């Protein structure tokens, strides 16, 4: 009986210690003097790695999701003769929820897991220890540019996702199913508010970018320096960041669009 209690207590302490380590990592990586010797090269390379490489999956899934949304929305709306509201439905769904969330989930799968694996491998091959040995802070040299790149890339990816998804919906809705192009766009423009919908979507994407890259970088640093350790850390990154994104999405939605 007592041993169960002890196990519960240990788990609780481990979780709390994990959160603490993650917080310390973020604080040490973000605060502290900027090292100008590296220049923007490190950040650019990470932006390339995290952002540009994620672009293909983001664009392809965006187009497909926009097409599916248009098709599904059309079959429901046409029953009420309201198919001209398709643009409104698709754009609000994408801007408010689907765009940032799906982009963040894809980002976690594509970029987050790669970040964790890369840092985990650096730790396993003792590159991080070597850096510390020669007086280079791995948190600032390795963690900071990756965190920054993820935080910058995520809102961009989410907006690209929104754009191609809406264009995909135009392709299916207007070109194929024959919704009138004029009413499609004007309904959309009437119902979408710049501050309420577009900017809240950007804020959401930014928050998801912080959370996903933070989890990815932390799991990399916290991985056990073995091949199995790297693979569990990569899995944990995808699972935790997906859960964190969905939970945060609910919170942010409740704050932004909830009861006034």
């Amino acid at each position, binding site marked *: 009986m007592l041993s169960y209690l002890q196990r519960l207590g240990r788990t609780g302490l481990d979780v709390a210690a994990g959160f603490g380590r993650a917080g310390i990592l973020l604080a040490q990586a973000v605060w502290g003097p900027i090292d100008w010797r590296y220049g923007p*090269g490190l950040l*650019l*390379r990470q*932006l*390339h790695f995290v*952002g*540009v490489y994620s*672009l293909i999956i983001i664009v392809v899934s965006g187009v497909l999701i926009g097409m599916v949304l248009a098709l599904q929305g059309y079959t429901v709306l046409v029953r009420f003769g309201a198919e001209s509201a398709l643009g409104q439905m698709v*754009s609000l769904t994408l*801007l408010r929820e689907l765009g940032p969330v799906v982009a963040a989930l894809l980002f976690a799968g594509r970029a987050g897991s790669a970040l964790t694996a890369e840092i985990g491998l650096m730790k396993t091959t003792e590159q991080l220890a070597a850096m510390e040995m020669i007086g280079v802070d791995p948190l600032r040299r390795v963690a900071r540019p990756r965190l920054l790149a993820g935080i910058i*890339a995520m*809102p*961009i*990816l989410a*907006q*690209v996702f*929104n*754009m191609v998804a*809406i264009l995909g919906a135009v392709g299916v809705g207007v070109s194929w199913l024959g919704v009138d192009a004029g009413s499609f*766009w*004007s309904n*959309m*423009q*009437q119902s*979408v*508010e*710049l501050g309420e*919908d*577009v900017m809240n979507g*950007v804020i959401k994407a930014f928050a998801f970018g912080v959370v996903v890259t933070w989890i990815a970088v932390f799991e990399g640093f916290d991985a056990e320096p073995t091949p199995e350790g790297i693979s569990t850390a990569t899995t944990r990154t995808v699972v935790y960041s997906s859960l964190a994104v969905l939970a945060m999405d609910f919170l942010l939605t409740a704050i932004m669009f909830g009861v006034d």
Partner: protein
Amino acid sequence: MQSRSIEISVGAFILLGIVALSFLVIQVSGLTFADARRDTYQLSAQFNTVAGLAPRAKVMVAGVTIGRVTDIHIDPVSVRAVVDMAIDKNVDYLTADSIASIKTAGVLGEQYVSIAVGASEDILKGGDRIRDTQSAMILEDLIGKFVTNFGDKK
């Protein structure tokens, strides 16, 4: 050479983000710069009930949008609803005897303020009040009346 190609691709990536955001802002949310800077003047009108009218609802003359509802509040003296409207500056044909009424677009559509222009010589200016108003039609009240009438006839 390799760093050059990285820089170019990152530049293209950021440019794509800017393009996407401006697409969303201009094409999807329909922001036009003329719209934001358009000059308006304020009118107000009192209604017995505004049931369902919301700020940012349209103000229309003959079905053409000429302004938006900016604020709805209660006048504490008369306990009627006061609707403030921002009307485009180039609208200079609203006479003092115009009638403002709250209407619904379609059966389930959004509510808007419709202004019927009168024949008076006096033109409404900024800060003026539209005297004659017609309140929102409340569907439940109509149904209630209909049901009681129907019951009486029997």
